[in-house]
């Protein structure tokens, strides 16, 4: 069984936000409320003349020890057989404990205004028909059909690499094994499956 993970190369990300747009189109995320499953932070650092501008794509880390999963009272947050952390919209209470627990800020409330607006836009094709807490799913439905997640497929700089962490021949596994790609804040012991090259 595959164990999916992602590597994000901050050296090549150009901050074009194509990933955010592709994700919003694929997953009907409420961009009208400025809520995203993946977004690219634009960070300016330093004082003139030693300044720098950095783009940092953020996304759910699909942790192996996720704080959001243990705290969820209804088990609406669950792990699928490929290790991705998903949400059962039907049983989500909307208690927001997972939002508070996530150290990576990956979750947001898909509130009733967002549900109504989404229904207005997508009609019968709406994927979000009830209020719930929302986050990245690694586009599991696309992956099941042999495709890459929307953000990976659309990235013009190939800054996102997706694959099986258990397959030693996959690019993600090689980058992680080499130590080039590193998790963020490993000291939090959440064991993220998204790694960064920076």
């Amino acid at each position, binding site marked *: 069984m595959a164990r999916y993970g992602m590597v994000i190369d901050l050296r090549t990300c150009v901050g074009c936000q194509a990933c955010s747009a592709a994700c919003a189109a694929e997953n009907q995320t409420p961009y009208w409320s400025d809520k995203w499953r993946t977004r690219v932070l634009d960070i300016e650092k330093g004082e003139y003349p030693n300044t720098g501008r*950095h783009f940092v794509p953020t996304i759910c880390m699909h942790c192996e020890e996720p704080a959001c999963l243990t705290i969820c009272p209804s088990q609406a947050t669950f792990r699928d057989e490929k290790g991705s952390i998903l949400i059962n919209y039907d049983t989500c209470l909307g208690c927001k404990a997972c939002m*508070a627990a996530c150290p990576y800020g990956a979750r947001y409330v898909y509130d009733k205004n967002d549900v109504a607006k989404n229904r207005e836009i997508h009609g019968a094709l709406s994927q979000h028909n009830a209020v719930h807490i929302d986050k990245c799913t690694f586009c599991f439905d696309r992956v099941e059909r042999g495709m890459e997640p929307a953000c990976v497929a659309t990235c013009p700089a190939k800054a996102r690499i997706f694959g099986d962490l258990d397959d030693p021949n996959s690019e993600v596994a090689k980058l992680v094994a080499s130590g080039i790609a590193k998790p963020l804040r490993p000291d939090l012991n959440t064991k993220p499956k998204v790694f960064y090259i*920076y």
Partner: protein
Amino acid sequence: MSVENTLHFERQEAYEWPLAVYLLLGGIGGAFISLSFILHYLFNWSQVGNYGMLIGMGLFALAGLVLIFLDLERPLNAIYSLNNIKTSGISWDVVLIALSFGGAFFYVLPFYVSIPALESLRLLFGAIAALAGFLFPVISGGLISAPVSVPLWHTPLLPVLFLINSFGVAFSAVPAMFGPGSEILAFIFNLAVFMANLVILGGFIAFYEHAHNGPVEAQYGFHEMSKKFNFQLGFLVVGLLFPLVLSGYIFFTGNFLSWGFGALALAQLIGGFALRNCLLKHGYQTYPWPY
């Protein structure tokens, strides 16, 4: 640029004032039930055993309603809240409220209806209610403090502070409501509660200010919180200083003012809300972006 506008500190948006109200009412409800059981059992104060338990049950019911209808995005899905009693703090909260409320109900019932079969189990029901009531502020504090994501909350002192504060209100409220006979005991408890409050606050300050490898993120939240008027007036002045001065007056003059314990209870109630609300408001998540 203020720290709020940088990427490393973002105020958490999950918990707002309804959760502060829930933590406060639930904590005090639990403390009322625990204290009422103990006072009834030890001193045979049946009035406290009866009405104190009822007040605790009412506070628990109110806390539950606040959580369900003001905090949850999908109130009807509260029926799924027991799906994860293995690891979820919220599930444990629900279990404790149910145990404490149910135990208190069967403890109080014989005051009104004679049920011989219940008499032999009454003590057990009361003990369960008291234990669950005692644990509620601890576990609900743990719900907030367990995740590593908000460093200001991530300390074992938080559940203890909630526990002490909840019992502080109950210790003051019981003699205020049920009149003479309990003042001296309540007064001693009150002083103990103040001392414990001060010790824990000292612990907080020591943890945030002087810990090696100091959690700067927690320190930031603590500094921001301590600068706010709501915290200074609500918790420090009304919730802590005023009760301390009033207790000091009672101690040195021996004059148990007729309004004294009512004022103490109200002040600690306001202080308790200010504390919880300010803590929630100043919970900053510190995202670990590499730049």
